[in-house]
């Protein structure tokens, strides 16, 4: 089932590359990735072996992006992506053995991790920015339901592709903010 997340990723990618009037072709190309080729292997399976399943956060953002409803926090602003990029910059090296502390362990039975994330999400919600609490709530629902193969909350929250995308968004959105004439995005969510 989660192999469909690769299809979603490809649909988003093709929709960015194709002219607007040919966006429907993105869905065709994305679904074609499920067709087996050499040795019964599909492009989706090859990509899944490369970068694994996207996190639930990434899937939510991809669905919104494909639906043309990219949240402003990712479409125009840089602060949210910057926080994700910086956390990723610390998290992945430590999880890959850069020290004795492994933050990935906090994602099993993640009471502490959830508390650390819930506090800013609830504060932002209190200030009227509902996006982050939505993202966290859906991630947590998926974690409770065991949607991914993982039993670790980190894998529902983030993934390396999201980290890279956020780093790119920080640069792009900062550049766009300084040169408003270059702004082409249609971010629809005012939060």
């Amino acid at each position, binding site marked *: 089932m989660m192999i469909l997340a690769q299809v979603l990723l490809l649909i988003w990618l093709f929709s960015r590359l194709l002219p607007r009037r040919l966006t429907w072709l993105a869905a065709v190309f994305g679904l074609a990735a499920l067709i087996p080729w050499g040795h019964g292997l599909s492009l989706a399976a090859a990509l899944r072996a490369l970068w694994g399943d996207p996190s639930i956060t990434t899937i939510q953002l991809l669905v919104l992006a494909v639906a043309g409803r990219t949240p402003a926090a990712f479409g125009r602003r840089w602060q949210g992506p910057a926080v994700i990029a910086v956390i990723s910059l610390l998290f992945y090296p430590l*999880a890959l*053995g850069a020290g004795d502390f492994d933050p990935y362990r906090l994602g099993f*039975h993640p009471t502490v991790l959830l508390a650390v994330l819930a506090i800013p999400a*609830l504060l932002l919600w209190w200030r009227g920015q509902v996006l982050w609490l939505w993202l966290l709530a859906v991630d*947590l629902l998926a974690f*409770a339901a065991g949607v991914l*193969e993982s039993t670790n909350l980190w894998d529902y929250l983030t*993934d390396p592709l999201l980290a890279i995308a956020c780093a790119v968004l920080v640069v792009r959105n900062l550049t766009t903010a300084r040169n408003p004439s270059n702004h082409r995005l249609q971010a629809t969510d005012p939060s």
Partner: protein
Amino acid sequence: MTPARRDRYLPLAAFMLATALALPSLRQPAPPRVRLSVIQPALANAPAGMERRFLPNPAPSAHSVTLCDLGKGNIAAAWFAGSREGAADVNIVFATFDGKVWSPARPIVTREQLQHDVQRLVRKLGNPVLWRDAKGVLHLWFVSVGYGGWAGSAINHMQSDDDGATWSTARRLITSPFLNISTLVHGAPLALEDGGVALPVYHEFIAKRPEWLRLDARQRVIDKVRLPASTHELQPAAAAFDDHDILALLRDAGPTHRIHASHSADGGAHWTDATTTVLPNPNAGIALLRLADGRLLLASNPEETDRNLLALQVSSDRGKTWSAPRFIERGSSDEEYSYPALLQDETGMIHLAYTWQRKKICHIRFAPATLDELE
């Protein structure tokens, strides 16, 4: 409710619902407690000396054997076999021993089959580990690689309800947040009192790190512990003295060429800093076994560079001191006898299996009294 109020309070309600549903997964499980195997005292009429057999290997190359007790003196073995290590034709093969002869080896995991089961590209297979739980279910963990070398490995799991005659489909264990790469399994697991299992594993990408996975009775990963102060060690070989006291010996991949050691006093939840022992190691796999009489048995290559010497050593003081090595193999420097696996079956007989010149798997069976001369 107005649309504005709905838009504001719906995410809060969703978050509260999600938290309530996730509560069972948020709670810390009970501390791990090791379940010690029930092993009979050594057979009074056990054959003297060491019986030596080769396992039937269906391919030119064989490596990384694992052993498992099936009861009544029967054991099972799995290893990887193909044209060479890492080749596309390597399969995980399985054979059983009835106390007299080994059955023909048959593949239980192929690359194509795993690819189908986990819906991912699989380029190579390696390192199987067998374990039989208290209900008699046989478990197999093994590594596979999609892209890159062994450092890109992930762990897969299968199980059998009929002692290996048929196997379930494989499923992928997620043990790393970075593309789920670089967790490898090697070394015998320890059964836990809650029906779960503690699995010695290691990480290879960028830094080499021995790690400790805890799986629940449904074989879901519920904890992962990194052994501290260990940046050049891998492949923990563990033995439990009681339900909470565990010794792990670590293969050396650094400059010391010595086996390292780490202890846990709480069933594997926490570990002491890894320390260097006096035992030589040429960056080669080791096996550790706690015998029913309380002694520790170590199988290793007691040398600094090659893998041509394979020996057994015994410790009667929980690994503080070790006997002189009893050599099982003494080859020339271009020969390899490596990756040992140890098992004491429920009748008390000890089994040693190892890679024999990368061509075959050799099996040696002996009674514990055979080790007395070492002390």
